[in-house]
């Protein structure tokens, strides 16, 4: 068991997969010589050489498509989209080409590629470099969607993603890159399986990415018995674990870093409500970001995502009254 930063866990996962499988290749903007803008490919060019670790032009569409073609020929490309927003110019290749190839080839071709992308807010990158944007890709049968939340999940989920026979969108909340945590390289995490972070009886909290940390802090300061689930995989998400948990706690809170409208939390709430309607003792709620772009100012960005205090307030209100609270930004008097 080693203690490492999230970005180091990513390097370790890439390095271990590349050592074990010569078909794993990496490419993206500034990932080779410069070792990645977030140092997530540190040392890999030296270790594996320029054939397998490549810098690309600033051409997301071309290199995402190149990953599709290489994967169809049996390689396992892992590409890096520096900021999730940059996938916008390459979305065709992921959503319309990669995710359809197995289907349109009558099962003859498969596309074992991983698209890594840094996402989410918190580091002052402004509104075009700070969104989470899972909702661009979640409604795409044929494409798996995963988000890391700590060093262990960075390591184990990335290794699982590289071994997947299907294309995987692998999201890395940028604010977590420098976070440290224990990594046991023998732990295998499965795509499609949620992680139970802590058990509890009063309420189930479903979160992903950095919101797992926010949920943990909020639960701790609330003194309530909260069951926290790190969803980890959005497609296909772990219905079984979430439904079993809510069946026990009878309350659900989704903590999500994305605008309230159109986020994945709605999917979780809908599925839980449809399945457990008569067993719930409180309405399922979502704690999200407001329907606004991500602001730049440090003062504003700190108020863009729900802080642990905001979540605690929502949590207590729900458990004490069994009623849905107003959005946290209304409770906090922001709007």
């Amino acid at each position, binding site marked *: 068991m080693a203690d490492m930063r999230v970005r180091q866990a990513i390097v370790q996962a890439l390095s271990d997969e590349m050592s074990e499988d010569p078909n794993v290749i990496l490419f993206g903007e500034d990932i080779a010589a410069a070792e990645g803008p977030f140092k997530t490919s540190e040392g890999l060019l030296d270790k594996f050489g320029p054939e397998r670790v490549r810098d690309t032009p600033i051409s997301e569409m071309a290199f995402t498509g190149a990953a599709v073609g*290489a994967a169809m020929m049996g390689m396992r490309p892992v590409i890096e989209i520096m900021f999730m927003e940059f996938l916008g110019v390459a979305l065709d290749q992921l959503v319309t080409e990669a995710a359809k190839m197995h289907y349109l080839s*009558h099962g003859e071709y498969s596309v074992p590629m991983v698209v890594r992308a840094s996402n989410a807010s918190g580091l002052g990158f402004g509104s075009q470099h700070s969104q989470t944007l899972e909702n661009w890709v979640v409604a795409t049968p044929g494409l798996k969607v995963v988000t890391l939340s700590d060093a262990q999940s960075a390591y184990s989920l990335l290794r699982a993603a590289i071994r997947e026979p299907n294309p995987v969108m692998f999201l890395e909340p940028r604010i977590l890159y420098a976070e440290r945590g224990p990594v046991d390289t023998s732990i295998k995490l499965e795509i499609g399986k949620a992680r139970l972070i802590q058990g509890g009886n009063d309420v189930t909290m479903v979160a992903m990415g950095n919101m797992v940390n926010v949920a943990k802090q909020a639960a701790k300061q609330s003194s309530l018995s909260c069951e926290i689930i790190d969803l980890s995989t959005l497609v296909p998400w772990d219905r079984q674990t979430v439904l079993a948990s809510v069946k026990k706690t009878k309350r659900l809170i989704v903590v999500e870093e994305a605008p309230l409208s159109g986020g994945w939390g709605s999917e979780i709430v809908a599925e839980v409500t449809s399945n457990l309607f008569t067993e719930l003792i409180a309405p399922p709620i979502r704690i999200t970001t407001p329907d606004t772009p991500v602001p730049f100012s440090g003062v504003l960005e700190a108020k863009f995502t729900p802080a642990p205090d905001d979540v605690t307030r929502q949590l207590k209100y729900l458990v004490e009254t069994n009623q849905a609270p107003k959005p946290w930004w209304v409770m906090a008097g922001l709007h």
Partner: protein
Amino acid sequence: MTNSISRRSEIRSNELAWYERMLEIREFENQVNALFASGSIRGTTHLCNGQEALDIAIASLLRNDDVVAATYRSHGIALALGLTPHSVLAEIMGKATGCAGGVGGSMHLCDKSVGLLPTSAIIGGGMPIAAGAALSFQIRKQDRVALALFGDGSTNIGSFHESMNLASIWKLPVIYICDNNVYGEYSRINLTTPIEDLHIRAESYAMPHEKVDGMSVYTLREALERAIERARSGGGPTFIEAKTYRFAGHSRADQAPYRPVGELESWKSRDPILVLENQFKESGKLTEDSIAAKKMETEKRIAEIVQEVQNDPEPLVGDIFKNIWAGSRS
């Protein structure tokens, strides 16, 4: 799919097969057109009448382990590469016996055994994919090549420029072939593109390029041989512009009222089937009688296939859930 492979071998080894396959493609497209008009085909179709020479030239030179990324106008290249008229027509008619089991349709044809990647209905969609396939050949030191076939309209989309640039800096064994059929959907090329010769666009990517008469199988083959040799020997990518003409409208029932008067007729005098026919007559490979016999045989064979496919089974409704995830049970 042994049938596609034997049909593929035929076109690689037998010059007369080029002619027969061109007749097959032409008659096939005529029947698709008729079936569409009578309501037997749903959705859309994009015919390749007039562009058969290029499909034949490509199929006659590539090996089975090379790959082709093509477009929604791919009935011709699919048949040329060896897919059977039965499996292609069945796909176009959404039958269970189609090359994609009926989930693809006219725009989505595929056969791994002869290297046809699933054809893309997105302009520029296959171009970076071909680069990626070529990248895998390069890394594994295989002497295979990838070929992307696309229309003139594709040269105005970002994917074209990004892919050409990437292929050039990485010296990938890929061949980009533009089938310049003069029209991008309903618009004549001069209305959408400030240059007439599209191959010069490769100049800015330092990529070897040439334009070639797209109506002559032999001329096309010469250009393609140079490009394939360059790619296999580590010389990198090539851009070829084949000057052809789309005899049909863009899709479905488009009668192409936007064509200048006389343009179609002028190009039809250089119909690629006629060009090859004349060459074969001169060399004594064909006579008026053998031509008439081949045409009759082709019409009869395609008519029989149309009958067969119409009686083929529809997909099972449960097929909706098949082949979405690799590695999972359907």
